[in-house]
């Protein structure tokens, strides 16, 4: 074990952890904004209740996303300083723009939304949650543009005098085809999580508390969430399909590693699962769908998909001796878990919609309840595995074709230091995870609140009136 390994583990753990909160923030900000818009348009109290209810869950989650996000920005400099030096000219710009354009919008307007119920006119207050939601979704674009540069570097040149990559075309960086497709894929994945959370919580109340005055609200939330989940799942599949073809073009090794495809094949089959050696080099049993990998990778059922061995030979010739192959068991299984968990969430959403068809009451079924409660966890896992796949599939590169991960690490940070930080982050994140989940469950169980429409703001003497919301 050396400082590099620990730095990689730390980046992996803190990033996956951060991205447990990000999808909910992205998706739920918009869904809560939609609920509040429905209340604003119809005046129906059930939408206000749902806005307040899911708004609380959103904020419990949001706080975690904010504080774990700061670590992400600092970590490039702290642990990956040679990487930061190498790409700073290109990579820093989207990060700075993300902060200036998106984070200010998100954090300022979320404050206005939380505390503004009785301070702002209703329309303006509604606008604040939309501004926060736009900020959140916008932030995703800039950080994904930065990440896409690592997958498929464009719009730059290598300057041998400084030994750094230099920006030559910022528009090319922002319109990187990997970014253009990763953004909708990630956003759709986020809505898969948010829609699933709506369903899970509403379903729990519908089954546990069958004749409540709030049943109509939960019925709406369950159906709305299920439709969001289904539409998001469709979008995930379509964007994922396009993404696979772009990936095959710009990072063929990643596609080969996704399948554990050692030999170039045309047509290439897709294995749903394989039993054999862990890295798939020797198989005892495999459930294979013919032509599918060729179609996923190239759009042609008979298309050629390059194998790991050929690509390894090609890269060795191009970049010098060394291993250019990711860890195959990780890429193979994370790719399947991503797809499998995502599709499972969509299947449950379909089931929920079917049980409620034509106004039927949700059946009192233990298995349906369990499936519903599993719903938000499944797409969260899908999101995590998707990131593990795409980042581990890029290895050994930190910037594909330009810089190896091992060359990007901070030279001045000792093993002791990085072990200290890794331990500290892991501990505080574990404690906070327990607290956060307990709070989420507590507030989810509490159910929709009783609401009185917030008082209109006025400038008359209201010195003694309690605030509509206070920390």
């Amino acid at each position, binding site marked *: 074990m050396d400082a590099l390994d620990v730095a990689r583990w730390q980046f992996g753990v803190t990033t996956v952890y951060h991205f447990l909160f990000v999808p909910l923030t992205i998706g739920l900000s918009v869904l809560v904004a939609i609920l509040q818009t429905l209340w604003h348009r119809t005046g129906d109290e059930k939408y206000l209740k749902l806005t307040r209810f899911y708004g609380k869950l959103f*904020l*419990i989650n949001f*706080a975690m996303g*904010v*504080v774990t996000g*700061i*670590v992400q*920005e*600092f970590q490039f*400099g*702290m642990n990956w300083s*040679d990487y*930061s*030096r190498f*790409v*700073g*000219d290109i*990579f*820093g*710009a989207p*990060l*700075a*723009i993300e*902060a*200036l*354009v998106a*984070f*200010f*919008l998100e*954090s*300022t307007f979320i*404050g*206005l939304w*939380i505390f*503004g119920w009785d*301070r702002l006119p209703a329309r303006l207050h509604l606008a604040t949650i939309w501004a926060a939601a736009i900020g959140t979704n916008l932030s995703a674009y800039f950080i994904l543009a930065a990440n896409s540069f690592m997958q498929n570097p464009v719009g730059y040149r290598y300057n041998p005098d400084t030994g750094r990559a*230099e*920006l*030559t075309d*910022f528009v090319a960086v922002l319109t990187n085809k990997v970014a253009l497709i990763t953004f909708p894929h990630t956003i759709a994945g986020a809505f898969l999580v948010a829609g699933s959370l709506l369903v899970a919580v509403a379903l729990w109340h519908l089954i546990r508390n069958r004749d409540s005055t709030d049943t109509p609200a939960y019925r709406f939330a369950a159906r709305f969430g299920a439709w969001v989940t289904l539409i998001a799942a469709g979008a995930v599949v379509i964007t994922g399909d396009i993404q696979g073809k772009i990936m095959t073009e710009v990072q063929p090794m990643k596609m080969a590693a996704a399948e554990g495809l050692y030999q170039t094949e045309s047509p290439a089959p897709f294995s749903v699962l394989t039993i054999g050696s862990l890295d798939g080099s020797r198989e005892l049993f495999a459930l294979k769908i013919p032509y599918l990998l060729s179609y996923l990778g190239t759009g042609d059922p008979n298309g050629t998909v390059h194998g790991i061995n050929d690509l390894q030979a090609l890269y060795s010739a191009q970049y010098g001796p060394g291993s250019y192959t990711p860890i195959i068991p990780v890429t193979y299984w994370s790719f399947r878990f991503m797809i499998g968990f995502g599709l499972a969430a969509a299947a449950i959403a379909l089931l929920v919609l079917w049980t409620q068809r034509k106004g039927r009451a949700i059946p009192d079924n233990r298995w349906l309840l369990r499936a519903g409660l599993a719903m938000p966890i499944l797409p969260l896992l899908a999101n995590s595995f998707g990131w593990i796949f795409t980042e581990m599939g890029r290895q050994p590169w930190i910037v594909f074709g330009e810089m190896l991960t091992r060359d990007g690490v*901070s*030279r*001045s*940070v000792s093993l002791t*230091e990085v072990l*200290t*930080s890794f331990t*500290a*982050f892991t501990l*505080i994140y574990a404690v906070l995870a327990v607290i956060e989940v307990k*709070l989420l469950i*507590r*507030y989810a169980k509490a159910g929709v609140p009783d609401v009185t429409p917030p008082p209109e703001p006025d400038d008359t003497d209201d*010195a*003694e009136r*309690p*605030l509509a*919301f*206070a*920390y």
Partner: protein
Amino acid sequence: MELTTIWFLLVAVLFTGYFILEGFDFGVGMLLPVLGRDDKERRVMINTIGPVWDGNEVWLITAGGAMFAAFPEWYATLFSGFYLPLLLILLALIARGVAFEYRHKRPEATWKRRWDNAIVIGSLVPAILWGVAFANILRGVPLDADHEYVGGLLNLLNPYALLGGATTATLFATHGAVFIALKTIGDIRDRAAALAVRLGIAATVLTVTFLSWTLTIRSSTAAVVLAAAAALALLGGLAAATVRREGWAFTGTATAIGLAVATLFTALFPNVLPSTLDPAGTLTATNAASTPYTLTIMTWVAVFFTPIVLAYQGWTYWVFRKRIGVAHIPQH
């Protein structure tokens, strides 16, 4: 003006904004057990910054992002070199941010007390360590010819840097007390005003000592003028606090913090991280900078978006301009 100079100024402005805004957030957090006698009073204090603390913290994220984009070498060397202090700052900011949101989520006294501790420690630690960090930037650190930090942790804990930490912590505490006096009504307002004066005297002594020491390390005419102005602003704020002119007192402490940060950046320029070893290791606004192309793009982005951000953040302060007291705190 050179693009690198513009970006040096912008990074300075972002840190100045960060310390003025998050300065009173830290102050409010540090003073929680001092001024907040019971749960209601502590809630009053937290709610004075409740709607704005998150937006204030984005000044730091933007400052970090701007350093990364405009001066990658500075960002890389500083953040990897100051590894453990920055780790502590991160852990503190994590605990503090979550505490604001979670503290009121359960009624138990133990629950609230634990989050109160997180707020106090989470405010005090960065308030000290930012001073330590900036003092070390001014003092210079051991950098080799590759601009790599070779100093270790103990090198950062020198007397001058520790004085810097004491200065920022006391200054922010004063700023926070003045802010509470400005934003509250009732008993707590009176106690905050009285405390602001006492803290302010200590802050003035420390600030004058620290800035004078700074000017013996590196100096320019402009830095001397700014340092004197910072001291005057702080004295003015202190005088205003004494006569209970809370708006002016806050203007005074905010201006003093702004001018003190400006003093540090002015004294530092054109260096961004001086080396105490090989002069070739010194990072300057020129040798740490990105290409003119990147700086040009970033300049346009900053010119377009900064006024918008300032406008809506300013508007937020207008929306939440009213003072609050214990009567405003809802039951749950």
